[in-house]
């Protein structure tokens, strides 16, 4: 994965999430303005843009985490596999099992590593017995690329791990519920470069099974891990396209200014 390889990234996958004319309001303020975007399956899509541009807000719309904020209002359509996730009949709990999320700050539960990963499968009834649950936990921790580090201390508290390990544990926890889409909100911003490299490598592996959406402040990171990039500015989706093209030959002057460091 070097920066040069992004040039020849081309993507030909089916659409997983399709957002149409999405507007988000926080009380009076208009946070997301008329965003249209198609997120593809088995692809890493990166959202970049300066602070406060609405990229995290938009990400949290994709699994309705914004529902927990009273003043937040969403209009427009977000289709997951053709179904509107803001339909009245949709239960956000079921949606979130399908669309997992990893947060900016590693936030393991103050429980054992095992219980952290097993929590999702338990509440969704994914395992019929202890053996199956053990299997899910091991598989998820392997997917989270942390199995080898924690296999001897599964019952130690998850909060005792290092920052990078905690974040990979959170990713393992998110994949344990067998989601189809994985949302990551600046997953590496609290990590050191080595841990960041490990998580990025992991994201690339996860692409094989999931559609991954990552919000990042680091343009190098977006270039390294993503195939598609969306640039947000002041609540608008300025440009969306193949990562290689966005970073080498952006169409919009604002994108170019941001990438070259003139705004942001």
């Amino acid at each position, binding site marked *: 994965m070097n920066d040069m390889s992004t040039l020849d990234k081309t993507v030909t996958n089916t659409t997983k999430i399709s957002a149409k004319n999405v507007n988000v309001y926080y009380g009076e303020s208009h946070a997301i303005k008329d965003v249209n975007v198609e997120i593809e399956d088995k692809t890493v899509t990166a959202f970049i843009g300066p602070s406060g541009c609405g990229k995290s807000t938009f990400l949290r719309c994709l*699994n309705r*985490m914004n529902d*927990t904020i*009273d003043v937040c209002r969403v209009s427009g359509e977000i289709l997951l596999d053709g179904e509107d996730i803001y339909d009245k009949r949709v239960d956000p*709990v*079921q949606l*979130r*099992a399908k669309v*997992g*999320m*990893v*947060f900016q*700050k590693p*936030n*393991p*539960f*103050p429980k054992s590593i095992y219980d952290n990963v097993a*929590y*999702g499968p338990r*509440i*969704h009834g994914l395992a019929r017995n202890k053996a199956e649950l053990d299997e899910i936990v091991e598989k998820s921790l392997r997917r989270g690329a942390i199995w080898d580090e924690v296999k001897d201390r599964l019952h130690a508290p998850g*909060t005792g791990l290092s920052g990078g390990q905690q974040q990979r544990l*959170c990713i393992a*926890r*998110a994949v*344990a*519920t067998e989601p189809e889409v994985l949302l990551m909100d600046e997953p590496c911003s609290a990590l050191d470069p080595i841990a960041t490299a490990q998580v990025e490598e992991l994201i690339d592996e996860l692409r094989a099974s999931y559609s991954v959406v990552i919000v990042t402040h680091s343009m190098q990171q977006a270039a390294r891990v993503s195939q598609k990039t969306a640039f947000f500015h002041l609540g608008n989706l300025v440009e969306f396209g193949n990562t290689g093209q966005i970073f080498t030959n952006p169409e919009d002057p604002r994108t170019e200014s941001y990438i070259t460091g003139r705004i942001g």
Partner: protein
Amino acid sequence: MTDISQTPSNMGGAAEQSKSGSLLTQNARTRKRNAAEMRFRGYGIAAIVVGLIMLVVLVTTIVGRGTGAFQQTFVTLEVELLESKLDKKGNRDLEDIKKVTTFGYAPIIKAAVQSKIEGLGIETSLKPKDMAGLLSKDAAAQLRAYVLENPDQIGQTVEFRFLAQSRVDGYLKGRVSRESIENDKNISGAQLDLVDALVAAGVVEKTFNIDFIIGADASDQRPEAAGIGVSMMGSLFMMLVVLALALPIGVAASIYLEEFAPKNWLTDIIEVNISNLAAVPSIVFGILGLAVFINYMHLPMSAPLVGGLVLTLMTLPTIIISTRAALKAVPPSIRDAALGVGASKMQAVFHHVLPLAAPGILTGTIIGLAQALGETAPLLLIGMVGFIASNAPETIADGLLAPNSAMPAQIYEWAKRADPAFYERAWGGIIILLVFLVTMNTVAVILRRRFERRW
């Protein structure tokens, strides 16, 4: 920045070179600021010293005046339980024995005192009635209770430890002196002489009195027999009512308000009112309890159930406020994490937030209970003061519904009675109450320390 390397000897030169002066001397402004800081520290230390002195005065006063209540003067006598007086028919029928009132026992006690004094060879000009006057008025009742329990002992001679009357007790504790009894009808100088002789003979002695801790209150005439135990049971049953009602209601209300309720003007009003409720004087809750629970709902007067209900009203705001604070202290990232893996809101709260908030909730509850335990004012209005429960409740229903008092109300009751012996018991009661409060608060502190911040 050359003056860092300057030696103190050419400091003057350095000060001239540098615009801000040497670092090695304080300028006027710094001196002023440092002086202000020193003054403030002085005020702070003075405030703490004043506080500590007050605490020391308080504790020494309480301990100094109250410890006497834990000791009591007893008189040891051999009593001959005469069949001719106690069971005239001689058939040991309990119904017949019950017909003999405490007055019937008085001559037996009189005889026992007289024979004891004669047996010891103590010379006294007192009449047998005055000799027996050294004993508590409780003695006959104590004897009668024993006979009713052991009718087969009639006709035998049994050794008893009778309470001495409160003036004798006061004399041994230094509260009563020969000067102070000049106008006292309850005791005479000759009786004190007899006490001196009996103390020397080992018949009268001061020992630890468990009955003060476990016994019931006694009438005005018998301060030496009064104990705080039954009102302790009253307090216990009230606390059970408070715990059973205030904890679930308070926690449920806080969880709803903190985690589920929409933030709008209605919840704002509720929030403000809960905070205000915490500041309402407790006597207001008392009159509310009187009006609603007793006059309207016709619950029994003086019952710990009613006391518990009133104290629940008083404790609820404390528990709600501390529970909400504990819930707020759980970082939102934990809720996000739970919601992010597809937990419902309720699962997020009950699986993750509540366990983390539990120590805070528990601490708040214990402190609320401690407050309620020491509360007297509302009990005045629902009649839990001034009632003398003669024995401990036997069933749980009795404990809740039978009239009783509570520890602080009992203390208030003692403090307002005329006999100085009761005053001493009021201080003793305060020691017991404080032991409970300090224990509860210590448990709260330990819980908070142990489970604080696990994330």
